[in-house]
């Protein structure tokens, strides 16, 4: 069972969260008409083994979307921050 640090609520079980995958990609700006850019964003993913950043939402808590560092090889959980706030410097 993963324990995920929520910037608002503290460390919680992963069962309180929903997962939404890769947070390293940048969504094309709204109105982008380049279908290739959308195709790449929606369908193409690298699937790294090792350190990764993912989107998780604390659905049963503060409902904030987080960026979480997780090692896909070991499942070790690292830092997290609010997606809307960006990575802390």
């Amino acid at each position, binding site marked *: 069972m993963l324990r995920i640090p929520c910037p608002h609520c503290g460390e919680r079980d992963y069962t309180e969260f929903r997962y939404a995958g890769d947070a390293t990609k940048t969504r094309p700006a709204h109105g982008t008409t380049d*279908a290739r850019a959308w195709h790449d964003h929606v369908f193409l993913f690298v699937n790294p083994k090792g350190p990764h950043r993912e989107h998780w939402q604390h659905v049963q808590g503060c409902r904030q979307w987080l960026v979480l560092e997780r090692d896909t090889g070991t499942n070790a959980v690292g830092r997290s921050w609010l997606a*809307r706030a960006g990575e802390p410097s």
Partner: protein
Amino acid sequence: MTASARLPAGGRIDREQPLSFVLDHRLLTGYAGDTLASALLAQGIRLVGRSFKYHRPRGLLAAGVEEPNGLLTLGEGGRRTPNVPATVVELHEGLFCQRQNGWPSVDFDLMAATSWLAPLLGAGFYYKTFMGPRRGSWMFYEPFIRRAAGLGRADHLPDPDRYETRHAFTDVLVIGAGPAGLAAARAASRAGCRVTLVEQDFLLGGSLLSAAIGSADDILRATLEADVAAMPNVEVLRRTTALGVYDGDTVALVERHDHARPDPSKGEAREVVITLRARAIVHATGAIERSLVFGDNDRPGVMLAGAVRTYLNRYAVAVGRQAVIATNNDSAWSTALDLAGAGVGVTLLDERIEAGNGLADAARRAGVDVRHEVRLCRALGRRAVQGVEFARRGGAIERRACDVVGISGGWSPTLHLTSHTGSKPTFDVGLDGFVPGPFAPGHYGAGAIMGTRSLARSLAEGHAVGDAAARHVGAAASAGSAPAPTEEAPTGHAASPPDRAPGRGKAFVDFQNDVTTRDIELAHEEGYHSVEHLKRFTTLGMGTDQGKTSNVDAARHMAALRGIDMAAAGTTTYRPPYTPVSVGALAGRSKGTHFRATRRTPMHDWHLMNGAVMIEAGPWLRPWYYRWAGRAVGSAYVEEMRLVRTGVGISDVSSLGKIDVRGPDAALFLDRVYVNAFAKLPVGKARYGVMLNDDATVLDDGTTARFDDNTFFMTTTTAQAAEVMSWLEFLLQTAWPELRVQVVSVTDRWAGMSVAGPKAREAIALALPGVDLSSEALPYMGVREFDLDGTPVRILRLSFSGELAYEIYVPADKGTSMWTHLLEQAAPLGMRPYGLEALASLRIEKGHVAGLELDHRNTLDDLGLGAMASKSKAFIGRELAGREALKKPGRWSLVGLELLEPTAKLRGGAILFSRHDALEGHGRGYITSVTWSTEHHKLIALALYEDGRMHEGEEILCAYPLKNEIVRARIVSPMFVDPSGERVRA
């Protein structure tokens, strides 16, 4: 049946507390402190079951969780539990058990005839033989084979017992309360940590429990237990098994209370699953003794040497009067010495040239007949062992009469849990066994699991890792000094790998699944060389014991056949659970209505009191139909439809997802997420909208109303409400944080009710006389918010049914009063409630898509909604909607169907074919929704069909293979009612 094997004194049993229990309808007696296994052996009952495949008579092999043979069925009725090892059952008054897998009985088993077929029944036999001659043959034979093989049977009654779930946290978890575990718990607790010590046994001490009462080891055990008990920061969980170790150092524990005969009516749980999060884990799980492989090694009375000693010292049961002990290591010498001390005649056969320090002298003094460099060839006897054949390497076979054989093929560290963490076992040649690989940070091992056989070293290791674990979690206090053993035990002279025996008879490796050396040879001949293939070909290690005594022997046998060493042979993967766990324990209280949360609308109680029959709709309970309309749904929903088409009805729509969208950029935001334009939606109006996923498939539809410039009230389908909410939050928080918009789920804040039918306006006018409902004041798709005696009320004039209709929203706590007010005031018009079945049927008639059509594969065009997409603005999914594959002909799209055979039925899920198709495969589409049409007096349906509307007017076939039905239907427009929309605008 032989006489009592119980010794007159000794053992950890309470002779003042006799316990009665029932085996196969015979009343027997044991003592408190017995296991079911020791009580049976004490009564002289050797034969505990028949084997899985050959129905050979079997006795107990072990004294712990590794027992492969002694599986019994416990309890009766809903408590019946098959395949429980007698060795793990703590005896209690009134225990009821049965032996398994014999017909008509275990003592006299006719199915043992399969033994004569044994040459045919090798590994892979079933699959090879019963696969032919046709596909499906296995399906035919399997039930018969399963009846002849197999073990105990479960019942189909509900389990009356209660099971609980608990979450817990600790600093240091110590798994196993043998000498190493006790020393670790002692050290970590003295260092000031919160410690949890779990032990699957009902007593603490592990291997020390098998030492004679009053011996040095026994005194050490008592001291360690007292040391741990004295620490207030140690939680000791007895009768608790660590089933598995998971990510984040989470450990699943199951705590059993069977011995206390819990009463569910008092809320007492039979088992508790504990999800424990530990900051450090000490693995002190010990080791399990292996058997020896020789001819007929499964005869009742052939037991692990350690088990013979356990029964003797812990339970005061002398399993025989004449013992042969055969071993390849020092540990079995203790058994020989203790048996001799109890007056049992002992012959000790050691495969090695010599044993550990001082053992030979001790054995001679005790009168043990010691033979070196000999190995067992065969056990004699049938329903009980009567003697053995043994020989020197290449020498003549000798015989020795005996009534018990204690065997020891070395010890396998219990590394199941460490393997769960990803630590790959490595082979230790000196130990002749696998030991855990490197540990993850915060994990430690001590004692026999690390291959340590010396008691003094186990204690020192336990103390050291307990201290290290305490440091890992930040403890500062000193752990003090390690417990000192009172006397050094045998040094653990290295084991030699056992030889393969040359004798006749079946040599079993896996007793539970009846796998012999011959089966392993067959697997080798057939090319199933790796341990994983060997396992699957022979079923070795796949029984309920998971091969705890047999996996290493099997790997060794295969390694020899392949000419490779054990390190290269490796082990199969260890997966949770370590020992079998009941499904009831895993389910806990999450069963029946507690399986998941039930959502109720504000008017729920009114529905129940007024004849509603409820139905589950996702997590919601909604009125299905009302008894005023009929006694069964089939007739009632049609009556309710008629009411709405001709008069007026009211239905509870509170379950619709409701989202408050607010902020200066709210209009802009909605313009982006809906395919159609919302930016210019006037205040006081609502609009039907459709959202797409990024990949251009339809996500959801619903109506959104604007109450002022910056405030919108969005509704979603019941099914997608949570999904849409998360999606909007995702967009606002990750993609467009610059938009000044807040979204809040208000589903539970508002009660919703739809008043529908030609008389809807009159009905509301009677109930809310002050509200101007004229088409000028409140046109179709108009909305109005007003205050009624301090209660905010929202009226939205929109229709799901195709009739004139209004949705009325009030705060949830006012739901029932508004609902009853409307019904009372509109009673003169004959307004009555209608349920979900009629609601859904009305929308089918109107051709509105809903969850059944929105299968997350269809596009706007597929649903006939292509015209909604704005040409003048960007929206989510727009670019990928132009993908070639989504524009190609042949896509399945929405159509209506009408039934052409009045006596037949249309069924949801029916597969659609053109009249010229062969009726096979996936067809050209399927029926999504079916209803009786009160307008057309026939069954109609919505369906997805290849190039749908292009085939309008065509007759097609609807196949429903489950009922062998094929019926004719015609493709028509999906709008069966009022296609021009005059009624909704009336």
